[in-house]
């Protein structure tokens, strides 16, 4: 028996996947249209896209999954924060803070054995990300300043601080190029699958996704976090929940996840800090988190999907000669399609809501 109530629930529950598929479909149609209009062969281009993403185990592990790591981690950071009603738009800055701190400790402690240095890099980078989130957290909790604006401003501070660091205190020892020295082998993340570039960061990201899912689902803290995010007044008045404490913990955890993403990049991929390390993962993360319906396991899945899309985008440039601007445009279309599909889902639910209310009166 399907009552209207469960029908709406099912809609809400599977809405996330429906949105993802709808977004893919819309994007596919628009992308093909754009390619044809630009005079490119869509078959060749999309073939390259698919091959670049999942065309071989090598592509899948070394490209798609490697690219998904920062997207999953920042996506988890955003999803966790949004779940608690914390609008952390600052994953980008927190990522850079983690990258800076991770490189610094990795260079300073590079002589120690790997089983000490690597965890040290990850812990210090997470801490730095949390510290970077601490400023907006305190401004919200103590001064009531909205975190949307403060986290964005902290992004700018972090980006410029990276610029200063690679021209100044952290610049390579020869003092020529604006980058740090390369991390010693001990400070680099070990490979997850030997012979590929896939590093253990991917396993860490997936495990964190599972852990967050379990925390949100089963624990008292996770439940309180969701209550605070859904309805701060009901959480405070009925749930007797200390909302400020929940926000503090969540915000810092979100910053730590984003900081960890920065460490994974410098310690797992680039082995040095550069300006422009991130192409905006902290912002793409918002799309990842929303497309995943803020569900941690959804974030893992969507992060891999976005990793595939970006990996495939590189192949589109190389094999099909599509200019980077077109490829970026197609990626932007995906995000737009996500937003449109998300709005469509909201509309769908609202329509059901309006039609559902009187029905529920009769159900009762």
């Amino acid at each position: 028996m399907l009552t209207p109530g469960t029908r709406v629930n099912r809609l809400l529950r599977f809405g996330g996947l429906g949105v993802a598929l709808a977004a893919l479909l819309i994007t596919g149609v628009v992308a093909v249209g754009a390619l044809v209009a630009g005079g490119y062969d869509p078959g060749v281009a999309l073939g390259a896209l698919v091959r670049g993403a999942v065309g071989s185990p090598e592509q899948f592990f070394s490209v798609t999954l490697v690219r998904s790591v920062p997207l999953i981690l920042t996506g988890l950071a955003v999803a966790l924060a949004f779940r608690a009603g914390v609008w952390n738009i600052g994953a980008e800055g927190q990522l850079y803070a983690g990258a800076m701190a991770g490189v610094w400790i990795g260079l300073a402690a590079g002589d120690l054995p790997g089983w000490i240095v690597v965890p040290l890099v990850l812990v210090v980078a997470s801490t730095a990300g949390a510290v970077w989130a601490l400023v907006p957290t305190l401004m919200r909790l103590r001064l009531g300043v909205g975190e949307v604006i403060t986290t964005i401003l902290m992004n700018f501070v972090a980006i410029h601080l990276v610029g200063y660091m690679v021209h100044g205190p952290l610049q390579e020892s020869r003092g020529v190029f604006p980058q740090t020295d390369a991390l010693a082998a001990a400070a680099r993340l070990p490979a997850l699958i030997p012979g590929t570039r896939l590093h253990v960061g991917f396993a860490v990201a997936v495990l964190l996704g599972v852990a967050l899912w379990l925390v949100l689902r089963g624990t008292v803290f996770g439940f309180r976090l969701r209550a605070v995010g859904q309805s701060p007044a009901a959480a405070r008045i009925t749930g007797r929940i200390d909302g400020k404490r929940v926000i503090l913990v969540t915000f810092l955890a979100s910053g730590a996840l984003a900081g960890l993403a920065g460490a994974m990049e410098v310690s797992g991929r680039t082995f040095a800090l550069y300006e422009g390390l991130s192409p905006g993962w902290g912002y793409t993360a918002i799309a990842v988190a929303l497309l995943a319906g803020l569900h941690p396991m959804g974030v893992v899945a969507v992060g891999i999907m976005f990793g595939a899309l970006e990996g495939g985008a590189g192949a589109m440039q190389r094999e099909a000669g599509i200019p980077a601007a077109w490829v970026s445009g197609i990626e932007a279309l995906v995000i737009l399609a996500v937003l449109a599909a998300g709005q469509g889902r909201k509309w769908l639910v609202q329509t059901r809501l309006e039609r559902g209310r009187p029905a529920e009166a009769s159900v009762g």
Partner: protein
Amino acid sequence: MAVASEPVDFVRRVARLGLWLAFLSSACQPPGEDAGAPFQVALLTSGPVSDAGWYAGAYEGLQMIADSFGAHISHQQTRTPAEFDEAFFAYASSGYDLIFAHGFEYQDAAIRAGAEFPETTIIVSAGGRVAHNVIPLIFQLEEGSYLAGIAAGSLTKTGVIGMVGGVAIPPAEGTFDAFEAGAKSVRPDVEVLVTWIGSWNDVTAAKEAAVALLRRDVDILIHNTDAASFGVFQAVREARGDGRDVWAMGMNRDQNDVAPELILGSAVIRIPEGFVEITRLWYDGDLPGEAYYAGSKASLVDYVVNPARVAEYTPELLALLEETRTGIREGTVDIPRIQFVSDEEANR
């Protein structure tokens, strides 16, 4: 947002989607190597090749290589250092013979890729690390800017000349050191003012810096930026509109026709010709396992007098410029240079 209580289902569905994609991909075969082409050449840039400057020159070079050698070419714009390894691997593993990585930022990844793919040759523009198959391509722009300095030192009336720089990295600083040395070689008491704006493309910042310098009595302004140079030219144009007798000079590419009424000349690097030259050496097996310096000798660097403003130059000055150019080629004129190339394999 709703809590999906069946996320396992969700993951399973996404995984199924992945399988479909994998199936699709196996259906379309990768393009075979271009059988007709003698070899394959790739270019990596970290900026758009539509910039009418540094990256555009590289892309033009790539196309000239296709035209002159019949090579199969490909280009990828990378957005982040994290993509470098992936791009090198993708090109090297699909059989590309020569990869131009157009910027110092590629040097570490190039060394890693070079070690993994000894058969592939990687050229790193303005790079600082050398391996047997990883070759820095150094454009000696300081030679052109030394000549520009001679012209500026001779033509200034106030005795103050200025420079607006993008990002203060050694290759850029080197061009300004040479400019200053050139100016002082003809007028030892000349005053030289420098401002770095911290960006290659920020037109507004460049214009503000130029206006400030012009206010301090500068009457000839040179720059070393990319798109930001338009800000410098605009500041000079407005000062000339106010009746001041001030001039600008171009850098990197021949900008004489950008604003013929106010540009005295340009210190240029000929990136496309440099790429073709490198490819020729590689093709003939003559490419040495060390940094390649592209300078006046091969006419890859020069100072180009603006034909529309040649009247500003005295015949004596034109003669001096020609004489110095020859001197640089023959090694008789000493100009300041920065040495930043190290041998990675030797260091290991």
